[in-house]
């Protein structure tokens, strides 16, 4: 008996199933469709629009000059975060002659913006004048600068000094209007606000073709322009605005610690503050952590003294500027003629909201230990004039203080070109000179330790805090960043962002 199965499904049923399958597929596609669509991609920008203002009292013009230098000029070496020197235009160097002479080897094939070669002969010609501007009277310590080969330079000091190496940070530029440098950007003729990428830059032409700079009277005004997308990069953002901007999706914030610290510098001749006990008491009366939190909105680092807190020589010698109201009161009591007397002095501050707030916070903390500090706002020009004349008791503003020791030396040594107010004193001079003339790393560390001890025993001022600032950059640009390092140092590597998803902070 043959066994045979039924026939295949009828054609109509197949059609019905086909229709159902099509409807099911269409419905499932609709149900599973992704929402939203892709945003159109804008063409990558090659011009960076920068807005510059000043958080501190100085006018934007000062910042503009600084920007010009940073973009167009370079030096043989640059100071890195721990205060050591790293080669830049130089390839390396070798100390000789017992530390008196530095033999510098130049990188090959570097040219100035006008195409002339950067060789030893050119630098030997440029460096003396540059050092005069950079080191002030200390440039006389340089005995000789000579080219010993096409790419070899010898710099000889009259005496060995670790500061000799820091002479390499002096900018290398040829005279001109504007001065002719070797940097990644070239200023437009007669302009300080327009820059073009240096096509012959020895580390490669920057990806950003043009940088256009606009100045603003206040950082808030510049910030508003950044939010309006009329500029791409806000030069500096103060502590007030950092928190408001970190949540923005269109702006990336990159913080760094400024190499200036807030210092309440005393006039060593002023009667109210010349007493060592007064100065000790005032130092102990300051809660620097609270000051950072209150006046700097938490964006700062408490000072550990005159020296950059991350300096390599400081790591084993870090002093603790302790907040000790008890010790402060005791020291101040010793200084008062009568216990009921209050110590009064006036502090000059430049016209700047941040300086004012720091001064007010310091004032408040002094009040707690019976010291009345009047805060007097003085225009900048008048301030320096009065400092020069010694017509002040104390002043509070940001002093250049790092990362090398050479900067505070210039400020606090009596012969320093930046010692506008005759700050410091013989003890400070002696301690600073010990640092200046130390011959080895060990001597250097010992001198630094000694300097710290002097600052504890006889402070020339109250070292308050290092301010943390930020640079705000539109996410239309990709910015390589390293923790703690200012993104300005990587400007030549910036490029238009291909992917808008960027890190929001360094």
């Amino acid at each position, binding site marked *: 008996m043959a066994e045979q*199965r039924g*026939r295949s499904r009828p054609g109509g*049923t197949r059609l019905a199933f086909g229709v159902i399958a099509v409807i099911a597929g269409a419905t499932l596609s609709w*149900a*599973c469709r992704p929402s939203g669509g892709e945003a159109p991609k804008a063409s990558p920008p090659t011009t960076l629009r920068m807005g510059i203002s000043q958080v501190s009292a100085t006018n934007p013009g000062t910042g503009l000059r600084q920007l010009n230098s940073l973009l167009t000029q370079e030096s043989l070496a640059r100071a890195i975060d721990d205060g050591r020197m790293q080669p830049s235009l130089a390839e390396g160097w070798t100390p000789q002659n017992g530390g008196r002479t530095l033999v510098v080897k130049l990188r090959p094939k570097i040219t100035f913006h006008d195409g002339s070669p950067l060789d030893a002969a050119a630098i030997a010609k440029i460096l003396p004048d540059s050092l005069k501007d950079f080191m002030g009277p200390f440039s006389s310590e340089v005995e000789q600068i000579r080219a010993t080969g096409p790419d070899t330079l010898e710099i000889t000091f009259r005496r060995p000094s670790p500061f000799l190496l820091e002479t390499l940070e002096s900018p290398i530029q040829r005279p001109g209007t504007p001065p002719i440098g070797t940097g990644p950007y070239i200023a437009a003729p007669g302009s300080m606000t327009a820059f073009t990428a240096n096509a012959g830059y020895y580390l490669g032409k920057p990806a950003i073709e043009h940088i256009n700079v606009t100045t603003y009277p206040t950082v808030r005004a510049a910030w508003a322009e950044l939010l309006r997308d009329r500029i791409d990069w806000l030069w500096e953002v103060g502590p007030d605005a950092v928190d408001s901007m970190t949540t923005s999706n269109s702006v990336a914030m990159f913080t760094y610690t400024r190499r200036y610290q807030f210092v309440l510098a005393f006039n060593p001749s002023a009667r109210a503050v010349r007493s060592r006990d007064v100065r000790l008491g005032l130092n102990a009366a300051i809660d620097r952590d609270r000051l950072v939190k209150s006046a700097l909105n938490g964006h700062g680092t408490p000072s550990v003294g005159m020296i950059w807190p991350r300096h390599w020589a400081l790591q084993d010698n870090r002093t603790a500027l302790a907040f000790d109201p008890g010790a402060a009161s005791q020291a101040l009591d010793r200084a008062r003629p009568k216990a009921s007397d209050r110590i009064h002095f006036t502090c000059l501050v430049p016209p700047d909201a941040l300086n*004012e707030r720091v001064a*007010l916070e310091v004032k408040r903390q002094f009040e707690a230990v019976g010291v009345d500090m009047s*805060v007097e706002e003085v225009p900048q020009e008048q301030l320096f004039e009065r400092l020069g004349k010694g017509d002040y008791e104390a002043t509070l503003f940001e002093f250049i203080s790092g990362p090398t020791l050479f900067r505070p030396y210039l400020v606090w040594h009596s012969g320093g070109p930046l010692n506008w107010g005759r700050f410091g004193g013989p003890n400070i001079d002696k301690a600073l000179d010990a640092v200046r003339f130390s011959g080895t790393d060990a001597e250097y560390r010992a001198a630094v330790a000694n300097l710290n001890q002097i600052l504890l025993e006889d402070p020339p001022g109250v070292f308050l805090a290092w301010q943390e600032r930020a640079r705000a950059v539109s996410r239309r640009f990709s910015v390589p960043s390293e923790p703690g390092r200012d993104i300005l140092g990587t400007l030549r590597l910036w490029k238009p962002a291909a992917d808008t998803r960027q890190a929001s902070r360094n």
Partner: protein
Amino acid sequence: MKLRIRHIATRFALLVGVAAVVPLLAYGAVSLLSLQRGTHDSIVTGNVNVATRAAEEIRRYVVSNAALLKALSADLQNTGLERRQQDQILKNYVLEFREFREITLFDEAGAPVVSSRAGKPRIVIPKNTAPVVEGVDMSPIRVDEDLLPTATFVVRLTRLNQGAGWLAGEFSLEEMWRMVDRIRIGEHGYAMVIAPGGELIAHGDPDKKALVAQARTMTAHPLVAAIRDKRDEGPASLEYTDENRKNLGVATKIPALGWTVAVEQPTSEAYANATQLERQLRIAILAALLVMVVVGYLFGRSFINPILELKRATHDVAAGRLSTRVDITTGDEFTDLGESFNTMADRLVQLQEDVKRQERHAMFGRVAAGIVHDLSHPIQNIGNSTRLLLRDDVDQESRDMFRRTIERELTTLKRFMDDLRNVVKPKPIERFAMEVNQSVTEIVESMRPEGDRNGVLVEARYAPGPLVIEGDRFALGRVYRNLMSNAIQATAPGGSVTIATARVGDHVEISVTDTGSGIPADRLSAIFDDFVTTKRRGLGLGLAISKRIVEQLDGTIVVESEVGRGTAFTLRFPARDDRTVQVAAS
């Protein structure tokens, strides 16, 4: 057009689908509607709560700061503090309460007395103010030199019910921004605050803060218009499109300040959960529908498969394949039906064998009867004649007659044997050109005597010749003779038999027509089969042999007949006017 669903499987599937899915669809539709309505209400309520809480927080923030200034004024007036002390208090205040960027004490003439600023005070006593809390007025929101919104609180100082100056504080709204920034609904829902004049003073979307910096006016915003048009102080909610995006917005007022706090969220996000649920529900319903349809179809198919199998098997049996059987093992009535079918098929085979056997018997009987019938007469005549020849008293004339009878009957027997032999082993046909009229004429003349004997008129009609075909004269002659003999025998006396030739296109036709009794229609189809005859005598081989001969000569033979009127046989051959004959293989 009426929908016809012919297949049970499809009907079954649709039946199951409809019965199972319609309630599901109804439930799904009701659920979806309820979900949509409930979600909308729930989200609006939630967002209203957020806006209301935000408004209250902002109100408290502003009012508390106003109260701070008022408290400060109480510290300053009628307390006999020295200027130095007042100065200290103000400076400590701005350090302590960062919302105040500056606080300055003015005398009755409007000159600054002491200020929190180290330098010259920047604040001025505002003109158009509105009370915020008792004793504290607030200026309208303005955009300061940094292009950011700020306001000034001012407290009127009095002494002995006389005016004693003002205490003014510049109040930064930046902290309120952070408050608004923290208000988030989902990923893309933000809050904003709008001043009574329509100025945007805060926006929670960091990328829209530029609108605040631009002092954007929001009077045309649909939500602002909605809250403005409301008669009561309650919140307003609205769905609207803004910047090509559909939003759900709620707004509520801060009565003490006249500000509006609005919360907006893209509807795609607000209803995302509901939309997802809706989508899942649709997918579930669709999946259920598909499953039901598939299950129904499969179930229906399993139900109908035995029927289809029986149907196919029935067709096979009808087509003659009686060996077809079914194997249905469903265990139900279909199994019984399958067994019945197989039994039926077995019986059919048996019946067929019986029928065949009977037919063979019938044919054998007929053939035997025909042989006996055809042979008995000649044999009997031969026997009789032989016996008579053996008698001595028979005269010579009689002897001659008996001898002729014997020879004639022997010839009949020989022809009979030839016919039989021709059935088994047909003679080879020889082809050669022959003129039809001429061959027909010869046969007509030979058959006319038989016709005369039977009282049948034998006639001939000839078409104009020559009509040449490839033929075997002798074989064709036999065909003509057979046809004419049959016609004469089938025709009653007085009737006629006519043979006619004709040229029809490329063919030559020879027709033999009689006015005989005719052949019943049911026997016409088998007329050319072997051993089929309408005569009482004979094996029925004549027409079969004639057909074979005609077909061997590439011709055809057809028959038309009507009972009572006569029969016509028509032979048709290809005309070969100019060809030589070839001998065809037999």
